[in-house]
């Protein structure tokens, strides 16, 4: 029983990360109708940059955290300006290839600059396991959950009460109409990319002490965030979060109770099921255009 609780709780903290990544996918897709295959690289960059700022620059944690998030947001901004914007009207196939290109480009540079070994970031508040319902938990898990919660609340406030948030939502529901009432759709796309990059980086940093990031973690994290986002149909932020948490728990249980070798395969099998169940919904979203 203790193990199952432990696995579930671990799964929730893992799922919280997928949830944040899924939010990034959803925001970019809602505003621009693009799936950003480089989303996972933002997560990797967050973790790696935080490591560099902490270990080489010896910055305090909070400063390193904020700085890393800002840097990755700038990278997201550059990605939109340099690679996405010039091909804005290209067919979907081209945009997919472009973001994949961006993804392996970033990954290649990261591998070159930081090497291939996973890096170790100290837990934010000590390594002493916390006992909970007969399970022992890594205290970093609470940081992960807390951060996810904070991100969700902030996003909710942002999208409900700020002018910018409302403009983004207007873009998401109808781009043409949004531009007719004077919203600069291009700028919104830029903001969507930076915001998603910042979200990805945040996820990457808080999870780093648990998963030890390396240059190559982006693909799998991106894929799993995508699964969670697909559960939410790429439109619903709430469902994306629920999807992320669910996926994390299922994956953790599968790894603990069945086989850890197949945990990724199980997550991807879920991807198929989700895609096929959601296919009608995607069609509707596509046909709005």
């Amino acid at each position, binding site marked *: 029983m203790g193990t199952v609780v432990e696995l579930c709780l671990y799964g929730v903290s893992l799922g919280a990360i997928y949830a944040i990544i899924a939010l990034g996918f959803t925001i970019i*897709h809602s505003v621009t109708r*693009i*799936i950003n*295959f480089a989303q996972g690289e933002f997560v990797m960059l967050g973790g790696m940059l935080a490591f560099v700022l902490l270990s080489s620059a010896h910055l305090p944690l909070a400063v390193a955290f904020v700085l890393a998030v800002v840097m990755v947001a700038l990278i997201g901004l550059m990605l939109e300006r340099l*690679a996405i914007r*010039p*091909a804005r009207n*290209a*067919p*979907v*196939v*081209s945009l*997919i*290839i*472009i973001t*994949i*290109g*961006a*993804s*392996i*480009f*970033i*990954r*290649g*540079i990261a*591998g*070159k600059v930081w090497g291939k070994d996973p890096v170790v970031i100290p837990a934010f508040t000590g390594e002493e396991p916390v006992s909970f319902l007969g399970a022992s938990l890594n205290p970093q898990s609470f940081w992960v959950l807390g951060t996810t919660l904070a991100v969700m609340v902030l996003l909710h406030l942002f999208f409900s009460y700020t002018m910018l948030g409302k403009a983004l939502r207007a873009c998401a529901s109808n781009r043409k109409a949004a531009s007719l009432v004077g919203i600069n759709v291009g700028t919104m796309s830029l903001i969507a990319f930076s915001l998603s990059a910042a979200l990805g980086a945040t996820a990457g940093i808080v999870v780093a002490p648990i998963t030890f990031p390396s240059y190559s973690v982006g*693909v799998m994290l991106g*894929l799993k965030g*995508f699964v969670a986002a*697909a559960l939410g149909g790429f439109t619903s932020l709430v469902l994306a979060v629920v999807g992320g948490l669910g996926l994390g728990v299922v994956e953790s249980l599968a790894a603990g109770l069945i086989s850890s*070798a*197949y945990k*990724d*395969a199980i997550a*991807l*099998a879920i*991807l*198929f099921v989700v*895609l*096929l169940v959601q*296919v009608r919904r*995607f*069609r509707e979203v*596509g046909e709005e255009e």
Partner: protein
Amino acid sequence: MRRRLLGSLKVWALSALVVAVALVPFVVNPYYTSLLIVIGIHTLLTVGLCLLMGYTGQVSLGHAAFYGTGAFFSAILSASHGVNPWLAMFIAAVATGGMAYLVSFPIFQLRGNYLAMATLGFGIILWVAFRELDQFTGGPSGLSGVPYLSIGGLVFNTDFKYYYLVWIAVLGILFISQNIVNSRTGRAMRSIRSNEDAARSVGIGVSGFKVKVFVLAAVYASLAGSLYVHYLTFVSPQPFGFLFSVRLIVMAVVGGLASIWGAIFGTTAVTFMSESLHRFGELDIILFGFLLMVVMVFLPQGLTRGLMDLYERVRARARGAGR
């Protein structure tokens, strides 16, 4: 007039290519012969991907999985069960094609981005399977003792002989693919790429064509996989991962996605780039990512066609200025 000119040009280019292919091993040193064998094998994969992505407009991010399936079927049947290598190659092609056929039904419910993600997921699942089903595949350490191919007394056990075997296959497949592209099927494929709903409305069986092209590309990949294992006489899961799928896309994109003969150029260019960057570590990945972005943004017709167009434009401008 222009068309006829292009036509005769094509015949010349083709003959030149065949002659070049036939003579190359006599001219270059053995290292390049082995490199050209690999290029030939990869060309088979790239051609399939061009048909699927370039002509039909359907993305596959998991193409390495079919390559791997062909490779493992060939290796397991011929090394562990003593099946004749040619028969094993045939069975592998049928099995891989059959798998693609089964997968295609759920997968082609999806379009665009979702299709891309589904194929990416599929590729990774198979890669995990290659690694984990170690009682069949040998797991991460792989499977050795795959026999050489042979016809009668002719055993394809040297690079020199294998080179001809591979390139005859490549030229054959290119020829077949070129004919498909210029046929009714090819026109249907292009119409699906430009507008699926419009294609459907004029009576083209969209799903049927997608499935056919997907299965064909999978069979090409399977043949490539079989040729690969009988060349190395060894197989491990390592070359069939996501990065290889991406690399195939780079090759197709550089050669021009919608260009059958561009596949040879793209594959050759990417392989040589990769070889020359090899000693600097994994710089090639950075270059590939960069190429993918630049080519898709600025030269969506591919590097060759794009540069040719650019040249034409510059020349036209120069001529205009001269007047």
